[in-house]
């Protein structure tokens, strides 16, 4: 196990290293002056020159690369042009928010997908199956930003039920009377719409995967065994079929992670959720290169680690796989 994790971590490091290298190359391939992308445009020429020397941008490209790698390893991504803060500090403040929203959404939609996919497969061909399958097909091909706008239009504007932006409201956090519970509730309250959006987008694909996997499982011999043993149908479904069927769902969560992250960034942007995806979009539109670069790396890192977690989960749930 430990050996497996170590080797996977090594792999992640290699992939990150390559991404970093690709970024380095891209930053120099892009038209225009690479220095201007590294140095805060608000600096005076003397200061800029000083900084260029500091960053080693006046050295040959090989040395620049080494310098760049060294900075990267030290977690030194430079200062954001706009915040004036170390980039690491800016993005680390946003990372937990993204993880909170994204993980909750993924876990909830995977659970719902599994639960509903199970039912659909079990009632194959019946009304419930049709309804669930069609709902899954339709929802998971929706265009996410549009869905988000619709959700805002309905629940924020027409019905005026739920907050449509941000993560907390100033009123609750400024009010000295608010306790921890109030604050937690406030976050939950703000999370409903973005969470619902991500949920609607994602449960469908898991449902479809679960359904077809469950149908395959139901044809397995151990299901006959279970039946022969005189187990109740419910027990067969929940204890024998489902635990085998949802293994592929875990895999599919892993495979679709990179894609889901796109959706996460869009959701964050539309709902102004203060996460890393929104930060990247804003950094890109404001040409805050150090921030954009670091956010991108961090997202790649999150995807890589999440993949590892997914694989470990798979191993945890499937006893046949031991590392």
């Amino acid at each position: 196990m430990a050996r497996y994790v170590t080797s996977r971590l090594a792999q992640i490091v290699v992939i990150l290293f390559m991404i970093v290298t690709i970024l380095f190359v891209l930053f120099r391939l892009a038209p225009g002056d690479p220095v201007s992308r590294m140095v805060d445009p608000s600096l005076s020429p003397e200061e800029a020159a000083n900084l260029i020397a500091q960053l080693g941008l006046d050295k040959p490209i090989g040395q620049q690369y080494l310098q760049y790698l060294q900075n990267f390893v030290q977690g030194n991504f430079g200062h954001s042009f706009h915040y004036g803060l170390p980039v690491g500090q800016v993005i680390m403040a946003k990372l937990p928010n993204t993880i909170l929203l994204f993980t909750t959404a993924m876990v909830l939609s995977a659970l719902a997908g599994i639960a509903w996919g199970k039912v659909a497969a079990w009632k194959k061909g019946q009304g419930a199956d049709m309804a669930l399958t069609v709902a899954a097909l339709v929802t998971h091909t929706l265009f996410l930003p549009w869905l988000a706008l619709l959700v805002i239009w309905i629940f924020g504007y027409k019905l005026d039920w739920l907050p449509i932006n941000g993560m907390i409201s100033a009123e609750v956090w400024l009010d000295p009377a608010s306790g921890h519970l109030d604050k937690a509730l406030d976050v939950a309250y703000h999370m409903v719409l973005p969470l619902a959006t991500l949920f609607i987008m994602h449960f469908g694909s898991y449902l479809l995967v679960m359904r077809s996997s469950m149908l395959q499982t139901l044809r397995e011999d151990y299901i006959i065994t279970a039946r022969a043993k005189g187990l109740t149908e419910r027990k067969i479904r929940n204890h024998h079929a489902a635990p085998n069927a949802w293994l592929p769902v875990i895999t599919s969560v892993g495979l679709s992670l990179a894609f889901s992250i796109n959706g996460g960034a869009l959701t964050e942007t539309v709902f102004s959720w203060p996460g890393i995806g929104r930060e990247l979009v804003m950094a890109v539109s404001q040409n805050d290169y150090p921030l954009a670069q670091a956010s991108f790396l961090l997202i790649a890192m999150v995807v890589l680690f999440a993949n590892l977690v997914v694989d470990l989960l798979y191993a945890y749930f499937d006893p046949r796989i031991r590392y």
Partner: protein
Amino acid sequence: MALLEVENLSIGYRTKKGVLQAVDNVSFSVEAGRSLGLVGESGCGKTTIGMALMGLLPRNGRVTAGTMRLMGRDMLGLSREQWRELRWKEIAMIFQAAMNALNPVQRVDQQIAEAILTHNPGLSRGEAHSQVEGLYQLVGLPLERLRDYPHQYSGGMKQRAIIAMALACNPKIIVADEPTTALDVIVQDQILQETKALQKEFNIGIIFISHDISIVAEVCHHIAIMYAGQMVETGTTDEVFRDAKHPYTRALLGSFPALGGERRPLRPIPGEPPLLVGQLMGCRFCDRCPVHGKACKLEPPQRRRFSDTHFALCDHCD
């Protein structure tokens, strides 16, 4: 009274092309402590019978005629819940280990204990567990492997675990479906011997389903040969082996190396069994039969009696 009596059983499957008559007018009985071997090629209906006995016919399968009685009780009239209670407690099944008969993500002891707990709801987990330990000792599995997952077992161990599982609720009858296929010869032999011993010890009736007539001969008191849904020959093992009447039985005997018998060159049976859809006229083995006459193709063969126990479904055998 026989433990299990099956009379004139017919089973059909609904398919896109029509009703497939998988089992046609089959009768047999099994008594306590005795065993019956069902032998035939794949697709001959022997597994269908096994499944029918467990009440596990697939959704499109249905008993179209005949009766099945367990200790005098009609099984066909049972409700779903009654079936569920009956399974494993009265009639259990040994599956082929090479198949995925054990759930890969559950520990083996749990799978056995589950059967015990289902049928003895009053039992505590601990009690069930100690019963499983007893079963392990019975089938000769090391106790430290109790908590393993199926994939950690060898083929032979899996088969033993499956046998242990079948014995879990002290059933009256066990249907053993190809229990030793895909095991190597030595393990196969061990398991057969053990099965025999267990059967004697617990006085269980066994229906032994196999495509390998020589294995069946090892363990069974009676043999029934199946071909294309019909039971073409039945008799004691001795009778069938020594004096096979039906041309198919003879061909079968010729196509397997006998364990103890004389060495003969293996002769594969040419041709393939007929499709069992629609109205079938005449003898079903006709096309592959070396001795068929003209009438065979048109008239259904008569059941002929050779002794109290020995019957064959053929007009041309003597």
